[in-house]
Structure formats: structure tokens, C-alpha cells
């Protein structure tokens, strides 16, 4: 009954999205306001029905209704309650349902908070959202229906894949999808602007908050996924240049470019045509990511060929939307007016360079990810493109980008003064140089590359601080006045400073972890000790414990430094009977931003247990950087300038301003 209700709600949502696809456009053509407003009502109702469908599936999971195929395949009655909730999106069908739910949520948000938008633009945006929705409802209903029943219901389910039974993974897909799907709003705005043939600075102002919101979620989603891989997979890696990872990195790179070019468009009315293209490309890359992950094409071209229904369907959606929007772009973009002029050395010029580097980085990831697939398809040759390739190509591009960030933020709009900017960055540059020398001296000159990159990261952080200090005239005015000026600064300024500093901080973490990671692999028995960096780990006890739906083997370590006990660590290895598979639960001990990391392997015949222990210096900075970037984004989003297009009534904005 619940399953049928959910299924029915999903069909109704499809029907509503079809109306939403057509009615508002007809309204715009006929200049009929009532017809245009149909889009609002359908967007809200559509979200209500998808929410019902999603709620129904969740309820089926919580009730462990194994007569539903999807629940039977991915749940177990003994599974902890929280994983019954999160298990809903721990499988193909459920995650696609989550995808459309979030899409409908964004549509509803545009309908609710788009009061400032011109009526025709809002109608067109919602219509485009309707097209995307309709395509994916059809995909779910025809190829991935989560509400199918089993003819003879079994007593027990097959349980959720154990690696997914983890709080990090419970949150990761929703965050990632909020990012992926959030870019659909920018896409819809771009297509609407192309249809309307009207594109002005106000358009950029409406698009920016939505893009920023999606970008924040995507940043958090990627960072969380990376941290999960770090602690769950048992060998302490945090980025693998895996195609699926790349699939989420590509929209992040082009989304970051979009964020920056939208600033130029808003402030200077320039880069308009390019911004529209980026908005289209960013969501296209999100769709591509969905295709890569969902079609099975990544495992092998042949796996895709054996069961192509889903893959071909998504490929069709992909081609329709990407091809359609790019064709529309090619047709309409030449008619759009070009915007303001600027000298090559200017804030705009720097942001263009930022876009060029980010786009190239994105193209690099794109070609590295898809080249092996293409080559196998066309010539039958099999090659691998892995981490060494990406480190070699992507790395230099990002170093170049980082080097540029401090200069870009200090250049004036329209015409900048590069020697002047360099002069203002003198202090930051000097400290960075001293850092390089200090690190080189401390490591006796053995890690030149690491010293230089750490210096660069310091330069980025201090460059961001310099810009802030200049704005409030720190050191030029009395401290009190400077602080008062700081309070008066728009929050987006702080947001930018934090986000750029976050880049540098993440960079430091990445360099330190990869350069000075120390590792100890050994078979240990109770009483044995292992030296990890300047720490010593002593194995005290090996034991077993029964969990709710698993049995785990654990080992207790005492960590010593200079003979003093500083903590205990208990890594374990869980065996899940229902799936006959196991997971490693690494133990982590943080010392400042550094971590000691221990994971367990198999028990040998002689009773010794295989142990992998690491000391990872400043590893936490790798995730602290993105967190800071996301927080910077959030600050910018709360800036009153952006609220013009964001969900916040104008009156509240005014009150806030008075309070400042």
C-alpha cells in the first residue's frame, strides 16, 4: 500500500513536471501572466508529491518491508535505525529518487523565493527545471523504479553494503547531490536567458546565490567523501583520481570558474556570453557525472554493453540536454550584447585568467577520465590513466592558479597596477620566502619541491590577509578605527578572504601529508611495539566483540611519546555476516592537525595480527581548508547584496543594515 502510494505520487510528479515544462512557456509566448504563474504552482506541488514518494520509500525501509525488491536487496531488519534511513539512498534506485527530490526542492525554492525575478524569466527558469525533472522521472519510472514488489516476499533482507553503513557516507550523497543538482538552477537561468535573449548584470546577481549555494554543498560533499575514504578504506589515502571522484571534481572546477565569472558579470557587465556557457557546462558536467556513475560504463565499456537500458537512457538525457543547450547557445549567444571593456591587467583580467586555468584543469580531468573509454571504444586498445598522470598535469596548473590568487584580488577593476600589487604583496612574499628557506633548512634541503609549495601556500594565505588588511587600513589607521572599518565591511569580503585562505591551508595539508607521511607495516603480537614518526605504538590486547549486525576483531594500542602515554587507540575489523564482507575501522588519534592512523589486517597463522600504522603530519588541514572555503561561501551567501536574489525578504535586509 505504501509502495503503491509512493509509486503513484511519483507518476503524479511526472505529470506535474510535464505541465510545468509547457504551460509557463506558452504563457510567455502569449504574454499571459496567469499561465506563466502555473509554473510556480506546479513546482511547489511537484516537490510535495516527490517528497511523498521519497517519504514512502523511507517508511518502507524503516518498516523493513521486504516485499519491496529495493528494500529486500539493500536492507536488513537488524540494521541500526539510522542506516535504515540512510540506506534509502545507498543504492541506485533510491539515490536517483534522492536526485529528483533535490531537483524538485530547488524548483520549489525558485518558485517560493523568486519574487524579485521578472515574471517571464521566472516562468522560463521553472519550465527548464520542469524539462530536467520530466526526463529524470521518466528514467526512474521506466528503468529504476524503487517501488517494485517481490512476488513471494522473503523473511530477511540482504543488508546494506557494509562500507556504506557509516555516518560519513550517510551524509555524503545528499551533500553531493545538493551540489550537483543545485547547478541545475544556474543552467535553467542560462537557458532561460538564451530563450529570452536578455542578459544583464541583474541576471548575474540572481544566478550568483544559487551557484554559490550549490558550490558550498559540492565543496562539502567532496571533502566529506575524501575524509570518508581516508578513515574507512584502511590505507590512509584521501584522493585517488578515481573516475567517479573526477566526476564530482569536474563540476566543482567549472562551478568555481562560474562563481568567479559571475562576479565579473555582476560588477562590470562583462564576460556575459562566457558566463552563460559556463553555467551550461557546469550542469552538463554534473549530468555527465551522473551518467558515468549510474551507467556502469566505468567498470568497462563491455559491462555497459551487456545491460545498456539505464546507461542508454541517461546517455539520451545527457545528449538531449547538453546538445540542446549548446545548440541554443550557438544560435542565440551571438545576439547577446557584449559587455564592458577592461585592460588585460585588471581584476577582470585576473578573473579571466582564473577561468582559463580552472577550465584547463577541468579539461585535463575530463580528458584523463574519458580518454581510456574513448580509446577502447574506437581502437580496442586498453590504457590506464591514473594518479601519476593527474599529478603531473593537474598539479602545475593548480600551482599557477594559486600563485595568481593574491595578485588578482589586489588589482583594481577595469585597469590594474601590477607593480603596485606586487609592492603591496611584498610583506606576504617575504614571509613566504622565509618559510621556504626555513622548511628547506629544517629538512636539510631534501624536500625542495615541498618547501616551495608550502611557501606558495603561505603566500596565498597571507595574500588573502593582506587584501583584508588593506581594506580596513590596518596599520595605517589606529587599531580601533581599523576594527570599526572591519565591522562595516560586507560579509562577502570576509567570505572571499576565508575561501582563498582555505585554498592555501588545504595545500599545506596536502604537501605535508604526501611528503612526510611515515608508515609502519608489521605483524604484531600483544606486547610488540611499533615506531611511527616520533611516536611509539604498543599493542596491548587483541579481542573480539559483537555489534548489532556485525562481529568485529579489535586491537588495543597505547601510544607513547618520549616514554609518556598520550592515549589509546582501538582499530577494528568488522565482519558482516549477511553480506559475507568486512570493513576496516581505522583508529585515529589527533595531535593538533596531525594524526596517528592505525588499521588492522588479517590475523596470521601464528596469531600475529597485521598492522598498518601511520603518522600523518598536518593531514587534517586537507579537510579544514575546504571547510573554510565552504564557510567563506556561506558568509558571502549571507551578504545583503546577494539577498536581492536569495531567499530573504528585503525588509529584513534593511533592518540588518541599520544594525550594522
Amino acid at each position, binding site marked *: 500500500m505504501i509502495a503503491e502510494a509512493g509509486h503513484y505520487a511519483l507518476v503524479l510528479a511526472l505529470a506535474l513536471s510535464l505541465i510545468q515544462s509547457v504551460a509557463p512557456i506558452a504563457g510567455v509566448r502569449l504574454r499571459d501572466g496567469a499561465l506563466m504563474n502555473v509554473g510556480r504552482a506546479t513546482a511547489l506541488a511537484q516537490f510535495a508529491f516527490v517528497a511523498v514518494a521519497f517519504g514512502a520509500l523511507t517508511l518502507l525501509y524503516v518498516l523493513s518491508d521486504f516485499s519491496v525488491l529495493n528494500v529486500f536487496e539493500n536492507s536488513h531488519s537488524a540494521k541500526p535505525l539510522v542506516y535504515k534511513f540512510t540506506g534509502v539512498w545507498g543504492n541506485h534506485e533510491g539515490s536517483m529518487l534522492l536526485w529528483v527530490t533535490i531537483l524538485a526542492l530547488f524548483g520549489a525554492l525558485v518558485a517560493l523565493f523568486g519574487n524579485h525575478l521578472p515574471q517571464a524569466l521566472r516562468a522560463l527558469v521553472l519550465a527548464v527545471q520542469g524539462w530536467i525533472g520530466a526526463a529524470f522521472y521518466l528514467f526512474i519510472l521506466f528503468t529504476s523504479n524503487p517501488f517494485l514488489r517481490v512476488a513471494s516476499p522473503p523473511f530477511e533482507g540482504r543488508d546494506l553494503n557494509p562500507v556504506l553503513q557509516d555516518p560519513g557516507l550517510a551524509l555524503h550523497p545528499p551533500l553531493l547531490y545538493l551540489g550537483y543538482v543545485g547547478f541545475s538552477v544556474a543552467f535553467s537561468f542560462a537557458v532561460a536567458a538564451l530563450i529570452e535573449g536578455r542578459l544583464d548584470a541583474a541576471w548575474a546577481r540572481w544566478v550568483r546565490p544559487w551557484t554559490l549555494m550549490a558550490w558550498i554543498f559540492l565543496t562539502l560533499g567532496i571533502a566529506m567523501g575524501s575524509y570518508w575514504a581516508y578513515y574507512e578504506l584502511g590505507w590512509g589515502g584521501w584522493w*585517488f583520481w*578515481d573516475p567517479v571522484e573526477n566526476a564530482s571534481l569536474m563540476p566543482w572546477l567549472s562551478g568555481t570558474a562560474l562563481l568567479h565569472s559571475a562576479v565579473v558579470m555582476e560588477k562590470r557587465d562583462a564576460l556575459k556570453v562566457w558566463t552563460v556557457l559556463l553555467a551550461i557546462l557546469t550542469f552538463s558536467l554534473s549530468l555527465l557525472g551522473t551518467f558515468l556513475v549510474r551507467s556502469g560504463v566505468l567498470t568497462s565499456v563491455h559491462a555497459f554493453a551487456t545491460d545498456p537500458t539505464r546507461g542508454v537512457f541517461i546517455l539520451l538525457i545527457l545528449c538531449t540536454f547538453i546538445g540542446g543547450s549548446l545548440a541554443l547557445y550557438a544560435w542565440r549567444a551571438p545576439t547577446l550584447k*557584449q559587455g564592458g*571593456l577592461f585592460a588585460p591587467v585588471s581584476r577582470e583580467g585576473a578573473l579571466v585568467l582564473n577561468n582559463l586555468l580552472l577550465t584547463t584543469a577541468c579539461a585535463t580531468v575530463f580528458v*584523463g577520465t574519458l580518454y581510456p573509454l574513448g580509446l577502447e571504444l574506437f581502437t580496442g586498445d586498453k590504457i590506464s590513466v591514473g594518479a601519476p598522470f593527474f599529478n603531473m598535469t593537474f598539479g602545475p596548473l593548480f600551482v599557477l592558479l594559486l600563485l595568481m590568487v593574491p595578485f588578482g584580488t589586489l588589482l583594481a577593476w577595469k585597469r590594474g597596477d601590477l607593480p603596485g600589487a606586487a609592492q603591496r604583496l611584498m610583506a606576504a612574499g617575504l614571509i613566504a620566502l622565509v618559510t621556504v628557506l626555513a622548511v628547506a633548512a629544517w629538512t636539510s634541503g631534501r624536500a625542495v619541491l615541498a618547501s616551495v609549495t608550502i611557501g606558495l601556500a603561505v603566500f596565498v594565505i597571507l595574500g588573502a590577509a593582506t587584501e583584508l588588511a588593506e581594506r580596513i587600513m590596518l596599520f595605517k589607521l589606529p587599531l580601533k578605527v581599523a576594527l570599526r572599518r572591519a565591522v562595516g565591511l560586507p560579509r562577502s569580503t570576509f567570505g572571499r578572504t576565508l575561501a582563498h585562505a582555505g585554498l592555501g591551508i588545504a595545500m599545506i595539508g596536502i604537501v605535508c601529508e604526501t611528503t612526510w607521511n611515515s608508515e609502519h607495516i608489521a605483524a604484531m603480537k600483544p606486547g610488540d611495539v611499533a615506531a611511527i614518526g616520533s611516536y611509539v605504538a604498543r599493542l596491548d590486547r587483541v579481542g573480539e566483540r559483537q555489534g548489532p549486525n556485525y562481529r568485529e576483531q579489535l586491537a588495543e594500542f597505547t601510544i607513547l611519546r618520549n616514554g609518556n602515554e598520550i592515549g589509546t587507540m582501538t582499530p577494528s575489523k568488522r565482519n558482516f555476516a549477511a553480506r559475507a564482507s568486512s*570493513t*576496516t575501522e581505522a583508529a585515529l588519534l589527533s595531535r593538533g592537525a596531525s594524526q596517528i592512523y592505525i588499521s588492522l*589486517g588479517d590475523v596470521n597463522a601464528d596469531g600475529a595480527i597485521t598492522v598498518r600504522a601511520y603518522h600523518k603530519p598536518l593531514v587534517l588541514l586537507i579537510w579544514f581548508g575546504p571547510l573554510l572555503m565552504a564557510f567563506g561561501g556561506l558568509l558571502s551567501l549571507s551578504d545583503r547584496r546577494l539577498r536581492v536574489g536569495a531567499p530573504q525578504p528585503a525588509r529584513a535586509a*534593511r533592518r540588518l543594515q541599520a544594525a550594522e
Partner: protein
Amino acid sequence: MARRFFALMMAVALAWPAAALAVQPDEIMPDPAQEARARALSREIRCMVCQNQSIDDSDASLARDLRLLVRERIAKGDSDREVRDFLVARYGEFVLLKPPFELHTLLLWLLPPLVLIGGGLALWRRGRERARVALASGDRPPPLTPEEEARLETLLAEPASGAGGDDGKITKD
């Protein structure tokens, strides 16, 4: 994170491989310098039955065989290059995570620099072009339409509620 999505995907089709450790204690070579070389090499060799994992990361038994093979060759005195060539001769180019620069990987290696240089050139030429056109036309924006004039009037008449410029000042650009 990739592993997560991969896991999601595989959850439908396959069971997740049992999590275990990659390099085992009994594999480690007595000479630390040789072991370091073996580790560095292992990171560039693909475990052919895994999805995009190096043999250094993978816990598959094939990866273990390859790790032992790499160490065996190093112990026999092979150079890094000889080890790689040996593996390619045996398993094909598929084992290399960094594909060699050859005719069929030309586009792969050249696309990033081409995009960068091509994009830069295009931007430069376009900038010059537009500057010339602007110089000729006097860089004046087209006049506002009457409706736009009226909107501007109402906007300017409103108290400053959200028209702050980049640094909080009211700007008129």
C-alpha cells in the same frame, strides 16, 4: 569518496571486496632503498582486476603477485625502467597508470597544454580586437530606453537598501 560511489554502483552488481591491507609485512624487502623504489614503482602499476587502483593500494591477490614480482626484479638488479618494460611486455600498456607518450596517447598528453595556450591566445586576440573596435566607436554604452530610465529613477529614489558596492561604498558603475 570515489570508492563510495563505486561502492554504490557495485552494490547492485558485485560484493565489495573484503577490506584488507595492501602491502603485507612479509613482502617488504630487507634493503630500505630497494623497498622505497619498489613502493614508488608499485604506485605507478595498475592492479588489473581492480578499478583504477595501483598495486600498492590494492588488496587483490593479483596485486600481491605483482608486488612480489616487482620486488623480485628489483632484487635481481633491474632498473625501474626495466621493471616497467618487463611488466608491459607481459601485461600490456594497461598496467601503467601513467600512459607513455605515444601516437595513440597524443591527444591525452597534449590537450591540457593546448587548451591553456589556445585559450590564452584566443583571449589575447579577442581582447585586442575589442579594444580596437571600442577605440573606433568611442566606448559609449547605448542610451537607456525610456522604461529603463524610469526604473533607474525609482531605484535611485529608494533609500540605499542593497546597492552597496564591492567594498560597502555606493558605487555607480
